[in-house]
């Protein structure tokens, strides 16, 4: 069942150098209770996509086209007051670095209490009870003590767990996790990802996991959406997409991964660089770097072609032959 659908989303930033086209048409659907990975290089628009869903773009950003459907409403059309009802309550967000995403001057309990109060829990004793429960749910030891400490007194992993507890406070249906493990140690990374998987399994929470790490996607997600220069190039279920990547960019990414047994051999690289956001791109954004590029790739934007029921790729190579 589709819970949230991003349709043809375009976002641009006004900068002193001119308009930067950050998103040039993003389409994907998030189903109830699944973890969807949003992958791509730095600057491909992963975070902008996540933030525009709940209307948290910076002031110089503008959504120029598209819709974000969530329960018969277009989130992009909602007023600030209506959005506030959605934020935290229905769709919550986890950030990359918990050390800066938590307010340094308030205790963990106070910060969870603020979220509870914003979404209807007025009693102080009830708030504390809930906060203790939440800290316990995210696997923090000794909640009774941690509820009264300040963020700087926690380790990075504990901070991220506290942040997740804050996100769970109002029992959201969707969590957008923007690189939730990038700032953490590798061992802690695995624990946090386990926690996200557990929440998805036990509470049927859907997660949009924004990451640049294909390994994390393979381990954690059911669905994956590959972004390149503000566009979706390929999307589908993790099993099929990782087994049979169709788009040349996805193939390039996967073959660039170091693998067991490849020690001493040179890694594959994708030659060339990502196009600047200042350019207007006519055809396929990847065409200048693509080994298979045809003349029309530079002229026309390829539509999605389906590979089985679970995978789609935006590339002319896979277009069904047209017999006129």
């Amino acid at each position, binding site marked *: 069942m589709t819970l949230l659908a991003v349709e043809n989303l375009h976002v641009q930033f006004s900068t002193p150098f001119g308009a930067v086209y950050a998103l040039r048409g993003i389409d994907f659907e998030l189903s109830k209770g699944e973890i969807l990975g949003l992958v791509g290089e730095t600057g491909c628009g992963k975070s902008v996509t996540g933030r525009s869903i709940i209307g948290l773009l910076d002031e110089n950003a503008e959504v120029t086209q598209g819709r974000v459907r969530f329960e018969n409403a277009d989130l992009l059309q909602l007023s600030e007051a209506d959005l506030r009802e959605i*934020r935290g309550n229905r769709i919550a967000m986890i950030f990359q670095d918990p050390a*800066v995403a938590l307010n340094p001057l308030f205790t963990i309990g106070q910060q969870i209490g603020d979220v509870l109060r914003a979404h209807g829990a007025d009693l102080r004793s009830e708030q504390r009870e809930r906060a203790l429960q939440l800290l316990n749910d995210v696997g923090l030891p000794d909640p009774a003590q941690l509820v009264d400490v300040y963020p700087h007194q926690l380790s990075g992993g504990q901070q991220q767990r506290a942040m997740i507890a804050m996100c769970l406070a109002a029992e959201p249906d969707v969590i957008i996790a923007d690189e939730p493990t990038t700032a953490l140690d590798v061992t802690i990374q695995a624990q946090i990802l386990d926690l996200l998987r557990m929440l998805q399994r036990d509470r049927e929470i859907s997660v949009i996991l924004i990451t640049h790490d294909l390994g994390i996607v393979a381990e954690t997600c059911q669905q994956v959406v590959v972004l390149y220069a503000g566009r979706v190039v390929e999307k589908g279920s993790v099993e099929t997409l990782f087994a049979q990547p169709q788009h040349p960019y996805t193939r390039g990414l996967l073959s660039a991964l170091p693998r067991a047994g490849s020690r001493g051999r040179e890694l594959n690289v994708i030659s060339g660089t990502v196009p600047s956001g200042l350019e207007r791109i006519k055809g396929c954004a990847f065409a200048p770097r693509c080994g298979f590029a045809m003349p029309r790739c530079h002229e026309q934007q390829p539509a999605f072609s389906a590979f089985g029921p679970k995978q789609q790729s935006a590339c002319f190579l896979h277009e069904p032959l047209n017999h006129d």
Partner: protein
Amino acid sequence: MFTLKYLLRRLGFSVFVLVGALVLTFFVSHVIPSNPAALYAGARPRPEQVAEIEKKLGLDKPLHQQFYLYVSELLEGNLGESYHSRRSINTDLSIFLPATLELVIAAVLIALLLGIPVGVLAGAWPRSPFDYATRLVAIAGVSVPSFWLALIAQFIFFSQLDLLPLGSRISRDATLFYPVTAQTGFYLIDAAISGNWKAWADALHHLILPALVLAAYPLGITIRMIQTSMLEALSETYITSARAAGLSRRVILFKLALKNAIMPALTVVGLSFAYSITGAFLVETIFSWPGVGKYVTEAVLNVDFPVIIAVTLVVTVVYIFVNLVVDLLQSLLDPRVRLA
């Protein structure tokens, strides 16, 4: 959080500062050429009179002995006596210091109660007309000379509108018909304690204009500091995460961001409070406010050393105290600040 150990160390250090200030003012004021004994003697003294007074005041002794005498008096809590009026400085200060503190505290309260919300909103709406208007007010508050502001305020509220009195702490009618019994020296407090509400209203009426004029400088500083640090706080990730959690704008601005923004402002506001104690002398003079500023101005004009030294010491104590309070407040507000 702070500890007793920290507090004791800070107080020990304060004694050091105090002694430094004392030595400096004492020796500087005794080295500059003047004749305090002649001043003490009054108009047209005869030379033998002056010599006699010099002996009485110990001015004929070597400087280090004079210092020793002064310090031993000081340690007994005696600030000495004015060469000019021959009144006890302790008595004088017990009248003038509360008057100044009442004025300065009122001014700083106005600055904070007005400056903080205005600064928060200006920081919340950068580049809005409100932001530009408050910048103008803030810059004017800091840069317009207080004596000019005082004269303009008197012209408008006394001459033109006839709303507020021209000066002094309380009207003569009030002192005659409902006199305030002095306990703390703060008229508003003394009148309130004795339930003398007519005198209380009268004192408040007199306080408004000088307090507003004196508030201009700390108000300007508070607005600017809060506005700048609000801008900074609002760009932090924890504000984005608070918005993502659906918290209201009111909570984000006045609770989450303000608590972070108030820290840098605290230091500056604290200093401007201490500064106002002596900075008030122009305002006090114009409004005939019987305070320390007016007292020390006269002392300087008369080269009345004991008074100058005593006031310097008192102001030093106020500076030290305010700084200590600011540091303690900061450690209360920010759990990351460890005072050790």
